[in-house]
């Protein structure tokens, strides 16, 4: 009879043999470098649509908490839009547009067009996602307080 340890050893051995003797499988299609970017961009679009959808679904909900939360959905939607565009623009940039060095980081960005300018300002996306997170946190906090007040009134 095999012990558990010897059984695990056998499995690892077989796995190593299989992985060590791999060769290109023609049936599996290989994907080029832009695939990661496309997947990421599609995910941004999904996030954006989800935020718009959830905003519309919750627009009839009343209360301060919900107002803040809906505002956070708006910020997240705008942030997604901004990031989607910025990612798109950055893919088309020339590396020569990044000049100078601070350590391993470029010091200047040379903007030739309005899209380049958009890229520069779009890179500062935290100006959108920080307010989005802040609004969400505030909204949740207010909702919690409203719940507390309602339950204490009911208890009374």
């Amino acid at each position, binding site marked *: 009879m095999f012990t558990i340890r010897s059984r695990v050893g056998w499995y690892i051995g077989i796995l190593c043999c299989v992985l060590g003797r791999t060769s290109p499988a023609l049936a599996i299609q290989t994907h080029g470098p832009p695939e990661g970017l496309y997947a990421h961009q599609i995910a941004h679009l999904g996030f954006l649509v989800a935020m718009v959808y959830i905003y519309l*679904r919750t627009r009839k909900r009343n209360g301060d908490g919900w107002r803040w939360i809906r505002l956070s959905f708006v910020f997240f939607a705008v942030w997604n839009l901004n990031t989607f565009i910025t990612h798109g623009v950055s893919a088309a940039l020339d590396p020569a547009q990044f000049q100078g060095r601070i350590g391993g980081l470029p010091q200047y960005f040379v903007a030739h067009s309005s899209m380049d300018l958009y890229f520069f300002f779009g890179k500062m996306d935290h100006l959108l996602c920080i307010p989005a997170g802040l609004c969400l946190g505030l909204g949740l906090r207010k909702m919690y307080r409203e*719940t507390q007040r309602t339950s204490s009134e009911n208890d009374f």
Partner: protein
Amino acid sequence: MTFELPLFLVYLVDGIGSLLMLVLAGWIFYEAHRLRHRSLINLYLFLLSCSLGAFAVNRATGHILRYVFRYSGQTHIWEAIAPISGGVNTLIFVIIASLSFYYGIFRNLQETRNREKERHLKELQKNHDFLQKVIDSLNTQLVVIDKEYRIAMANRKFLNDMARSKGEIIGLPCYQLLHRSCDTVTDCRTDESDAHICPWRRIHNGENLHLMTHVHRDPVTQKARHIEISASPVHGNGGEVEYMIETLTDVTDKVKLEQIQVQQEKLTGIVELASAVSHELNTPMFTVLGNAQLLKRQIKPDGPGASELTAIIRNVKKMSQLTRKMVNITEYTTKDYVDEEKLFDIAGAAESKEEDRDARQKDRVQREARWLNLEKMAAMGQLTASVAHELNNAINIVLGYSQLLLRDAQPESQSSNDLQKIEKNAKQCQRIVSGLLDYTRSMSREKQSVDVNRHLEDVLKLVAHRMALDNIEIVTQFSPDVNPVWMDPDEMKQVYLNLLNNAADAIEQNGRIRVKTALDPSGQDILVSFSDNGPGIPKQVMEKLFTPFFTTKEDGTGTGLGLNVSRDIVHKHGGSLRVKNRPEGGAVFTIRLPVGHPSTSTDGG
């Protein structure tokens, strides 16, 4: 146009933003965690916050590491990490999008389910309202009582009659609401008799439907009300009885009217009997008078026995006056009897022609007429009873003096024969009047639940001596299944004695009387039979057997009222008395009496 833009601004915003995002992630998670996750939207917000928090941590860490590695010239490390960070971000975006869309789907399902539930609730409410309307429209009280004897539901009629609101009576024990005197269910007896028990107990005993009359307290006046109850069980899924539905109808007026009718019948019986007695008394009374006057003429005015004969004559004359008085009472009673129909016609002509008002008016007028007649009959009955007592006293005086004179008279002499005639006829008068007196006495008697077998045993003890003298054997065959009967034991004793004496008279000597009790197969009645092995009853006698004053006994030994009175007594108990000849010889009298309370048996039929 070319702009050279300083990237340190971007680095500054990115660095500070990343640090702030880390703080925000923790705060958002804390706030989301504090919200209770009982509703779908709160669960969504919690999961969204967790995802955004994870995204914030991943992104901020990624950005910080990028600056650290690139600034320090370790670009290759960052390039190895960057796809992982980006991939995680992508995954989180997908998760957030999925969460949002799934929330929408679940929310739609929930709303559809809620709408369905609301629709079902509305339908249920509609059905409930309809049923409530139906039971509220009933013109009889309806109440549902649970196993703990608590009221679970009641209709409007019940609430109105109880002068209570629904909130006040739901959950209230029925015995406290309906029988105010009961504090606990074990104390709850609506009547002294065992036959009159709680309907719930009857339902538990497996009776599906029961109609009975209870005495409840009026919630306002606290007066006793006669309530007719019909009870049905409500079975649970397991077949056990969970609730009892009671419909209650106030029959106090009906019961009172029945009592009036019974009383009226009794009083009418007295007056009718008094009329017959007056006629029956004539012959023996005038025989006494004739003989007494004849004897008085034969003796000197101051001779022995003259004063006694004078007293006899005086009292017979008094008897004659009293019998005339009774005849007058009878004539007055029957002549001025209030005709209910005629009274209604007179009253109705002046009143509205509307049908329902007519019915109510007729009911009221009939009740008033009955009361008028009852009052009059009661007065006449009382008068008849007092006259009967006076008559009895006069007869006793006549009898006493005649027996006194007879003691001193020469045996076998003419005067002794005359005095014997006087005594015999006086005794006949006494028997006739005693029948009337017995009837008047029976009016005030009360009924009770009686064990028939035991009662019969007591009665048989009374006749045992007579039966032994005549060498008559009494054979009893009592059934143990015979239930108690609601009866007047004294009246029924009179019936049994009559039947036993009649049987003994028919046998004369050396015979057998069989007394048998049994429960009728229907379970509603009990049967008591008295059979003898005498000669039986001839056909022509059978036809007149229950006719008042009809007797086959030798002149003077019977009044002819025994069987008539016995039959009336049995009828008053809601039963019947039948007679027939046995094929093997002799006669059998069978009494049929309803089991339990008379209202239970008669109403329940």
